């Protein structure tokens, strides 16, 4: 059978209790992805092959259900990727009605002082008899990448606790919905420099490529005596974790620009502080005025390094952006999504 026939869904809701995934099929969204894959839960094991007196193992002991991992890559847009991004940052969402049927959703990184438990959700994978519902999933990382005027791509890693239901047991899982056309050439990248002037890199036309990545470093190995034992296929047993706190998060941002002058390099060595770096991906019209938007905001930052680079023979600079702790949200980046749905969970 074709691996392209693998189908995957993500819950539109977050878990009220960890490791208890949404049980209504219509509350899931089909995940658009260009790379076919399917999933099989893996049970970790250890053996006695390394004992003195043994040349090879004589048996294996099954231990923990390995955390299932999803790597998703596709166009960034305001439905499933926006949900994953919001869950990767983890803060609460402020929903605002912009106009009739047009909504803004703003969110920040979950502050470590508030807690370390990111929103968890359910994931479903189906390929013929390989039918699984994964509980306790979290967005471990989210990356946005822009190159030239191509459509902006996202790359997300999702990890689960190891708790799984098979077969998935959900009915009416929806089909793939048409995704909004987030045309790359509409993307706007702007920031406010140290002289309070707004620099619009899209108008200048010098931005070759850029990347923003947020990694949560989720602790999937927080294993404790008393963890729940799960049995699949009558005899295959192993434990799964009952919590997965976030580790110390990391944010990486860089931009490759045409080499024009020494301004950026000079500001880098002068350690100038800038504000409101915005990567705004713009999509189709929602109504006569407003478009779908997916925005990453860096409230305060500096150009940590400006190094020589190259783009198909043209001189370029690679700007490494060091995001500072925002004085209001306490995080490095925030997010904003504009779409036609009242909430973004």
């Amino acid at each position: 059978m074709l691996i392209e026939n693998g189908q995957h869904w993500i819950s539109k809701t977050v878990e009220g209790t960890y490791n208890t995934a949404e049980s209504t099929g219509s509350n899931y969204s089909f995940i658009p992805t260009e790379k076919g894959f399917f999933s099989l839960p893996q049970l970790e094991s250890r053996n006695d092959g390394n004992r003195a007196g043994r040349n090879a193992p004589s048996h294996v002991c099954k231990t923990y259900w390995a955390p299932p991992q999803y790597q998703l890559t596709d166009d960034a847009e305001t439905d499933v990727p926006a949900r994953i991004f919001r869950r990767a940052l983890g803060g609460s969402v402020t929903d605002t009605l912009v106009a009739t049927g047009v909504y803004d959703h703003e969110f920040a990184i979950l502050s470590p002082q508030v807690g370390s438990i990111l929103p968890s959700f359910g994931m479903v994978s189906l390929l013929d008899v390989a039918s699984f519902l994964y509980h306790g999933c979290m967005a471990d990382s989210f990356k946005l990448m822009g190159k030239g005027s191509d459509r902006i791509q996202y790359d997300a890693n999702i990890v689960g606790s190891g708790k799984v239901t098979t077969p998935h047991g959900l009915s009416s899982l929806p089909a793939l919905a048409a995704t909004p056309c987030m045309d790359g050439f509409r993307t706007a990248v702007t920031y406010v420099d140290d002289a309070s002037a707004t620099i619009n890199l899209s108008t200048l036309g010098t931005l070759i490529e850029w990347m923003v990545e947020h990694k949560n470093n989720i602790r999937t190995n927080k294993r404790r005596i008393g963890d729940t034992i799960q049995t699949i296929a009558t005899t295959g047993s192993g434990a799964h974790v009952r919590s997965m706190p976030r580790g110390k998060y990391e944010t990486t941002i860089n931009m490759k620009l045409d080499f024009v002058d020494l301004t950026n390099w000079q500001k880098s060595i002068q350690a100038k502080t800038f504000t409101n770096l915005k990567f705004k991906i713009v999509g189709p019209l929602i109504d006569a005025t407003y478009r779908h938007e997916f925005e990453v905001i860096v409230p305060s930052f500096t150009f940590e390094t400006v190094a020589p680079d190259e783009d198909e023979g043209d001189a370029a600079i690679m700007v490494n952006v060091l995001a500072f702790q925002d004085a209001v949200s306490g995080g490095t980046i925030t997010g904003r999504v504009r779409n036609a749905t009242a909430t973004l969970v």
Partner: protein
Amino acid sequence: MARKKKDESTGDGPVEIVEGTVEHAAREHFEREKAAYEERTGEKVNFVPPHPLTSTPLAEVVSDESVEFIESEDAGGSEDESTPPEGDQ
């Protein structure tokens, strides 16, 4: 004796948290996140933010619309502008 201005770092003790300042916005943000986290996880958040030493006026919000993409007349549009795709919520 002249009073110290509120937007200066005093270095000698906490200042009043007043509306329209970064410190006030940060405190409000923290309280909102704390309430949402407690509701979502059922865990109590015990962290108490330390009192700030400075009081900084919030920066003026620059309208996002001022840096909107401006479409040239001959640029044409994407095929789905007039009718967003089905499933486009």
